[in-house]
């Protein structure tokens, strides 16, 4: 094609000028065409991807939440279920006092501070239930089961890759209106990545 074109040009115009302008200019024009065309396509894609990636630049919140009063957790070594209620923001909607998850609190006889397990299964994130009859935690999805201390019933043969995730617990004394004090159980509610041997926050 370029050859034929050159020939035509040779026939019609000044030979020397056209040869130079034709070949050099053609390369340059191709280059500019590809560059500008590429830019024109990439600009909107880039803008899109930039905003599409926005979740990667936001950090998840790990609120400290009051989940129960201490007297709701008897020191009988049995787990008690409590929803985790916290303020939560979903994109543009501000929710106040939403259930963001659930925990099991368990106090061994004589212990003051309860242990807190998040109810989210470390396997695939289903919500773990507790069977009082069997005294075991049971995940309804892929049948993982855990002992009351959070350890897997079948160890490494269990579907779940690690024991139940514990959460940080803090006790806080509060004076109430009638002059008594009540002890609140505060839990730092962290969402953990599922499916790994190690316990890593989702971030």
């Amino acid at each position: 094609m370029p050859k034929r074109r050159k020939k035509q040009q040779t026939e019609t115009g000044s030979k020397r000028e056209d040869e130079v302008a034709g070949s050099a200019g053609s390369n340059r024009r191709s280059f500019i065409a590809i560059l500008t065309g590429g830019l024109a396509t990439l600009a909107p894609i880039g803008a899109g991807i930039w905003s599409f990636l926005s979740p990667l630049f936001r950090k998840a919140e790990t609120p400290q939440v009051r989940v129960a009063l201490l007297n709701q957790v008897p020191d009988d070594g049995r787990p008690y279920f409590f929803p985790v209620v916290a303020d939560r923001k979903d994109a543009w909607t501000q929710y106040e006092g939403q259930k963001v998850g659930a925990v099991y609190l368990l106090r061994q006889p004589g212990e003051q501070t309860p242990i807190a397990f998040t109810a989210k299964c470390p396997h695939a994130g289903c919500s773990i239930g507790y069977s009082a009859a069997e005294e075991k935690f049971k995940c309804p999805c892929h049948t993982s089961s855990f002992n009351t201390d959070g350890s897997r019933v079948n160890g490494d043969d269990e579907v779940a890759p690690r024991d139940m995730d514990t959460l940080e617990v803090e006790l806080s004394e509060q004076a109430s209106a009638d002059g008594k004090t009540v002890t609140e159980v505060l839990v730092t509610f962290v969402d953990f990545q599922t499916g790994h041997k190690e316990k890593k926050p989702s971030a």
Partner: protein
Amino acid sequence: MKQLVNSTFDWLDSRTGIKELLHEALYERVPGGARWRYVWGSTLVVAFVTQAITGIFLWMAYSPSTQTAWESVFYIQEEMSGGWFLRGLHHYMASMMVILLAIHFVQVVWDGAYRAPRELNFVLGLVLMLIVLGLSLTGYLLPWDQKGYWATSVGTELASQTPVVGAEVKKLAVGGSSYGHHTLTRFFALHAGVLPGALVAFLALHLALFRKHGLTPKEPIKRPDEMFWPDQMMKDCIAACAILLAVSVTTWYTHGAELTAPADPANNYAAARPEWYFLFLFQFLKWFPGELEVWGAFVIPGLIVGVMFLMPWIGRWKVGHFFNVAFLVVLLGGAGFLTLQAIQDDNLAGSADATFEDSGLADTPENRAAFTASVEFLKAKEEGHYNAERAIGLAKSKGIPPTGALTLVYDDPYLQGPKLFAQNCSSCHNYLDRENPDPALASLVNENPTAPNLFGIGSRQWIEGLLDPEQVSGPDYFGYAGSPFAADGDYSEMVSFVQEDCFGGELTSNQREAVRATLKKVAVALSAEAKLPTQAATDAQDSQLIAEGRALIEGGLADLLESGSSCTDCHTFGEQQDIGSPVLDGYMSRRWMIDFIRNPADERFYGEMNDRMPAFAPHGDEKLNQLDDKSLGLIVDWLRGDWVRPEEE
């Protein structure tokens, strides 16, 4: 007329070349003649077109956000004329498309139609298949109901196990660190924009290459060639009609696709399962414990898809072709087996109230675990239906508030009452309708109660039971274990009032009946104090009876009973103020019950007689209370039967 049409067509053709295009598209030779076995590719196109059309119409009524997704689908399903049918078509055609894909795929591999020069077209077909599966995966979430939400959340949790970039992949898919508006907007953009766009592009290439190479006829060709139009086209169109008929009948028969309760991030739906054609993957994952899951979720499926892509090259040798066919048979057989196994595992128990002992299974820990898992699944499924029906009923009768349908669910005593009761009350109290036990509330039955049975509390029947000489000392009232109000307890006045003061001594049967009739009036009047919504009509009717009963409570009873006792010897009521507690004014009314649960040891209630019931909300700051004000209201409303009854409106 005909001339006009012809000349218009000629004009159009001279400007567009449409005649040649049509000719190109329709007048293709079909070697060996038109056949029914060539229709499968076309039916897939028809299925896709159906999805595009129904999808666009659904789009016109759908709104992707956490407060509007379920709500708009509810509206499509329940309120829009023909909405259920439209949604049903879209739903069942998606399943049909997967079946058609499988048939098409099997046929191509079986016939070796992937061989040169059609390798690339086979690859394009596989890409199309992956896109269709992607459409199905993204579509499942869009109604934002319990089933879609929890099934998809398991899927995205799996995505987070992608090696190295898992956490980032999940964040991008979910549009944040947890499910929300942007999960829906992203899934919807994929489902209605990106994936269909890609599908159209790849389908165009697929069809272009198909036309370039033609179909793969069955050798040897015995019959003469026919033309695509109208011979093959007629068969294609009849097949298309049959497909649509099948899907329409299914839709009609099932009354459209299921819509479960609104997605509730705080309450896991244990019966969440993926769509049936992904069940084999779900089941497959159970084989891979712990860290091995990445093998089940990515490595092995990845290898299988990899082999599928290589089939045209493997199939160059005769042995390779046999390998491909065998691979396919094993793959489909395995998937079928896993699917059946998944269904069987879930339904092992047969019903939610089955017991392991009656199941006839060998008593091994594995069997027990499998059985329990199945019971849990079936229970969750039953509860799911119950919740869905209720949520839809509420949305229909009350309308949905701007905060979304989940608010309806959370504010509904009928749904929340039993849960709150189980958490806070049922370790002491029983809740059992002795005449007509509700299997759905079986979990609230306490076999060894240490407090009264609260079923029907405040109703005439309940108070009549309290005033019955047998029942008052039975387990439903004051005869529970260790009761201070029992005949041998520290505070036996009420029991002895009923048993001795009312029915004691030598009464003839006529006298007993007279006492009963009198106490019945007392019960009616006292029950009227509760202002139960379920009793509003009868209370209004019986105003005369109530007035008589009130007079009896206020002291009139003393004149009728030989013992000369009456309610107001101990209790404050009406004109007899400051007598004692529990106060009978407003007895079992909403206010009375809420205050009672807040602090039963208050002087208006049991004072120092209260030996066991905790004060659930004694503090002014509700954060310091075991029960917040809203939960308190929900429990009381539920106990009083004060909830919306859609069927009556």
